Each structure stands twice: as C-alpha cells, then as structure tokens.
C-alpha cells in the first residue's frame, strides 16, 4: 500500500513522540490541483465536514421555503454543536416549527462537548438527551425534508428513504460523480455516509462557491448556506472551536468545517479554492494543527486578528494537567512548499 507523508509530529521534551501522516489538497472550480500532498484520490469518510453539502437538500426539497427557515436554523443543519443552551434553543424551535419532537430524532445520544452542556446533560431530567447530540440540528433538518416530501418521518435514516436519496443526489451533483453502495457505510449519527476522495470533496466546495457546472439554484443555495455559517459561527460549533473562531475572523472569505476522524473541508470563497485534509490515523488535534498552519501560510497578508487566531489554534505548545509545557506540534519539512506561490496571489 502506498503511504502518505508525515504531515505533523509531536515532540515531548527534545524527542519526537508521535507522528501523523495524511494528505491534503487545494482544488479550483475546474478540478485543477492548486496544491497537494499525499494521495488525494483515496476515498475517505468526511463525517460532519460534509454537512454543508448535505444541507443543500433542505433547499432542494423545498423545506427552506415551506417552513420559512431562518439562517440560524440553516446553520444548525450544518452544525456539530456543543449542546449549549443557545444551540438547544434553536433546535427546539426548529422542531416545533416542523411539528416534530425530540422523540422523532434518530441520531442517538452522546455526552455533549460544551462545558455547561455537560453538566446539564448529567443533571437535567427535563430535556431529552438526544437534543445534546452534536448532529441533532442536521437530524431536525432531515425530519423537515421528510415532512415537505410528504414522507413518513420514521426511518428517515435508511438509505432507501427518500430523504437520504435526495441528500445523496445533491452530493453527487456537487462532487460530479455517482455513488453506488460500494461506497456506503453508516455514520456515527446513523445516517448513510459515502466514501469520497479528498480531491472530489475539495472540488465540491470549490464548485459550491463558484457555481461552476452546477444548476443555477445550487450556487444561490450554497451561498446562503456559506453566508449563514459565517454569520453564526457560534451556532455552527462554539466560539471555542477552531472552525467557528477562524471563520468569524475571515470576513466572509473562508468557510471551514471539521469532521470526525481527522478531516477538514472548506473553501476560500474569493478564489473558489476548495480545501480538504485527512489525517490517516484520524487524530483531530493533528488535523486542527495542520489546517491552521496551512491557512496561515496560504493567506500571507492576513490581518492581525486572523493571524492571532491561526497561531492560537495552530498552537504548537502542549501542556499537561499541571500546566507545564511538555512538548509541541511540529510541521513536517516541505509539506507546505507548494503554498508559497499561491499565497502571493493574496
């Protein structure tokens, strides 16, 4: 098997402790490779990073129009939220609007990421625990689609259900490839997920940004999704999360979304450059480090606040339970060499 290069290392004291291999690419709207490292043709599961693509089906089904969905609700459909009260509020309102309840959600439950949310999750007996699931917003959106299609909401996660067929066809449209069952697996929130190459993931985001080779309404809908994500970064995840914080600082030019198992997808909107990253072993911290470092090099003349954030989330220092610095993340030599020329265009 061909192997991806080392992207990041972690040192402890003066010796390297862990290494992280992976691949990333920057692809334009015409599927040209602007920069790439590692095998970008290998299929990966992108988990939550693909939610903005899946959200296109909210428009395709007519749910946005029928339920007069707000930008906040559209963001929750794309979110991997922390389960804090401001997330839960929007989700409960959204559920009410479509005449569904938490009992209809089939995403399952897990301990939420938010600090306050965690305490509520363990102590509150009033709220259904499924609401705290980081994907609950996307699942409400899928219920909305089922409703507008006039389908049973039950079993909306089965790959044969019309909701999933619609999401699949929206995905196929933006990646420009059909997906058969050989790519199919089940995601952590129980919905069908398809293995797609890193390159096509990046292409999809580039095309959603530019509208190239897509039906005209796709660009309009994608623009609303991207704008909403940028407008409400705190609803998308939380202000402590890298993707939320960094988007906020990039003046509507950057969309970025993390996915489980070491994935990031995004787009630089002014250039329509789609970006995709996967760490081979699935390590999320390494993915966040590399994505922050990549963006920092890509956008050279960034303003102070952007740089500050990228330095913060691309933090090299690792500290232990007593607050002592034990080591740091290191970018592997040469992996960003190709970015020099691109960054000049900024």
């Amino acid at each position, binding site marked *: *098997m061909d*192997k991806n290069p*080392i992207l990041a290392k*972690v*040192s*402890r*004291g*003066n*010796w390297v*402790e*862990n*290494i*992280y*291999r992976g691949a990333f690419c920057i692809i334009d709207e015409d599927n040209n490779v602007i920069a790439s490292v590692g095998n970008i043709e290998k*299929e*990966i*599961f992108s988990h939550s990073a693909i939610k903005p693509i899946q959200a296109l089906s909210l428009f395709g089904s007519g749910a946005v129009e029928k339920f007069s969905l707000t930008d906040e609700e559209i963001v929750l459909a794309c979110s991997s939220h922390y389960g804090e009260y401001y997330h839960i509020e929007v989700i409960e309102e959204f559920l009410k609007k479509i005449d569904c309840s938490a009992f209809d959600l*089939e*995403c*399952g*439950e*897990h301990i939420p990421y938010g600090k306050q949310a*965690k*305490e509520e999750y*363990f*102590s509150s007996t009033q709220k259904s625990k499924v609401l705290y*699931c980081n994907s609950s917003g996307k699942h409400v959106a899928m219920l909305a689609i089922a409703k507008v299609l006039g389908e049973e909401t039950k079993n909306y996660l089965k790959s044969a259900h019309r909701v999933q067929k619609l999401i699949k066809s929206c995905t196929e449209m933006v990646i420009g490839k059909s997906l058969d069952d*050989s*790519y*199919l*697996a*089940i*995601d*952590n*929130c*129980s919905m069908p*997920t398809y*293995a797609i190459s890193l390159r096509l993931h990046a292409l999809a985001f580039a095309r959603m940004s530019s509208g190239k080779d897509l039906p005209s309404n796709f660009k309009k809908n994608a623009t609303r999704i991207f704008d909403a994500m940028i407008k409400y970064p705190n609803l998308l995840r939380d202000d402590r999360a890298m993707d939320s914080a960094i988007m906020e600082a990039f003046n509507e030019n950057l969309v970025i979304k993390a996915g489980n*198992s*070491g994935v990031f997808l995004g787009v630089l909107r002014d250039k329509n450059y789609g970006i995709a990253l996967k760490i*081979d*072993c*699935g*390590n999320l911290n*390494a993915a966040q480090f590399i994505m922050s470092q990549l963006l920092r090099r890509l956008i050279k003349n960034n303003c102070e606040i952007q740089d500050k954030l990228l330095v913060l989330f691309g933090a090299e220092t690792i500290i*232990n*339970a*007593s*607050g*002592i*610095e*034990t*080591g740091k993340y290191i970018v592997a030599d040469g992996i960003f060499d190709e970015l020099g020329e691109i960054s000049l265009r900024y």
Partner: protein
Amino acid sequence: MGANPILAINFRGRRIENIHRGAFCVLEGDGRAIFSVGDINRAVFPRSSIKAVQALALFKSGAVEKFSLNNKDIAIACSSHDGDKQHVEAVQVFLDKIGCLIDDLECGEQVPVGRAARNEYFALKKPASAIFNNCSGKHAGMLAVAKALGVEIKGYSKARHAVQKLVKICIEEVIGQKLSDEKCGVDGCSIPTYAAPLTAFALGFARMASGVGLSVETQRDSEIIFNASVANPYLIRGENKLDSDLMAAFNGRLMLKIGADGVFCGALLDKKLGFSLKIDDGDIKAAEVAIANIILSIAKPSEKEKQALLRYCSNELKNWRKIKTGEFVVSDELKAVFS
C-alpha cells in the same frame, strides 16, 4: 525516514477509515528477539507502561520496609487507575501511611478516567482533585521514596530531585543502558520521562521476569512488584480495561501495562519473555487490538485466557445508537509475523 508497517486498521463498512502504524518486539531475558516488526531501535517514550520499573525505587530507598508497604500499596504505585472508589481509597490509605496529603501530590488535578467514576464526578459536581489523577498512586509512591530518603518532599517530581535520580537509576539497571538527557521530556503527570529504544523496554521486562542481568536484590524486588501487580489487576487500571481484564484472566502469568500515546509493555512470567509496543500516532485503541493479538500469538493461551483475549483482538465499532458501523482489526502484516 522509513515508515513502520500498518499494525491496526479501522474499517467503516467495508472501507478503510483510519490506519495505524507502529513497531513491537518480543524478547528473551538475554536480549534474543523472538518476534519483531518495524523499527524497534527507534527511541520511544514508555510513559506509564514502566511504572512497575519505576516502583523499584520504593525498595531501593527503603520505603517498602520503613512504611511496611503491602502488595496493594505496591500495586497502586504501579497503576494508571480509573479514579474509581477502590483506587481513590487505596491512594488515600497509602498517603495516610506515609503521613502525606493530597496537596503534596504534584501530578496535577484530573477528572477521573473511568466511565462510572467520571459520570459520578459530573453528576455530583465533585471538585477536581489530584487524587483522581490516574498517576496519583505512583506519585504517592514517589512521596514515600522522598520520605524514606529523608529529603524534602516538595519538588519530588523534578528531574534534579533525589527521587527522580533514584528512579532513573532503577530504570537504567533494568533496561541495561543509560538514559539520555537528550531524549528527555516531562510526562503528563509532570515527572521526567526518557525515551529509549523500544527493544530496551522489552528487554527490561524480560529481565525483571527472568532475573537475567539483574542484582539479587533487584531480582527479588522485581518479583514482588510483578506479583503484587498481577494479584491486584483491577487496582492497576480498572473495570473493563484491557490490561486489568487480561491480567485477571491470565491468573498470575501475565504482567501488562498500558502507557499513554499507544504504548504497551509487559512480560509473560512463566515463559520469561518481555515485550513492548508503540503505535506511531499514539492511538490507544490501535495499541489495544495490536497487543491483544500479539499476546494471543505468543502466550499459548488456555481456553479461558483465549476468551478474554478475543474480546480485545478486534473491536466492533458502534455508533451512538449502538449500531455497528465498522471494525477495528489488526493488519495482515501483523498477523504474518506469527504465521
């Protein structure tokens, strides 16, 4: 740098989601390699996997004698515990014995690692405490060493403190080589940790199991430490944890200890073999499936032992609704080593 082979694979459906590379070796007490894969000469940080080696300082300092430490005390000093009731109690008993307080521990505050203890921690809104730190037992041990040496206990976690100097000497004797300040870091619990070749740690465990190359005292102390550990497998880590479950099932013939960032060290006490494993990317689950398969292949397990091992040899991956999404398995490269 040449890449280590893939040892573990995480499948989602029928497709590969994540891969984990690494190296391992199985050695005899005289250093002869029985099995090995990957770059076993590369220096790795053993982290918590060598607590049983570090515990030798309890004997060398005279702390075992001075405080009449029993097997439970020694086991908790070798533990990376879950912070469950039995662990917190054992650490408290140890601290009381040596006249120290939780505040003397320099391991840092932590939320309990174990699921039950953690849920209780959040539900009861307990304050964070150093006693919940998974290394608190080892740190109680180090306080005991300081007291027995008659030195100031404060600062015992620093590399220049007499306690850490003694711990370093103990490790060096067992692995048969000097530890270098050029491959030194601070561990999660703030004590110094030294990287050494993966082979050195397998050799250390083989020597502690066989006595080969060790002084008579170290042979005796090693035997006591291993016996205390295998006799108290659930003090060493916790319920439903691989090293605890396997040590319990092997009923005294397996010493096994996890270390942070994808490390395992251990010994087959009856066969007097030592082994060590490091996953390059530090993934714990990958380390678990790999070590279970390695032990399955080298231990000639009984039916009971085999059943315990099989629980960890592959891992069904389930999602939030407990639906099977994939599987964590070892690679064909790993299996081929034993065929």
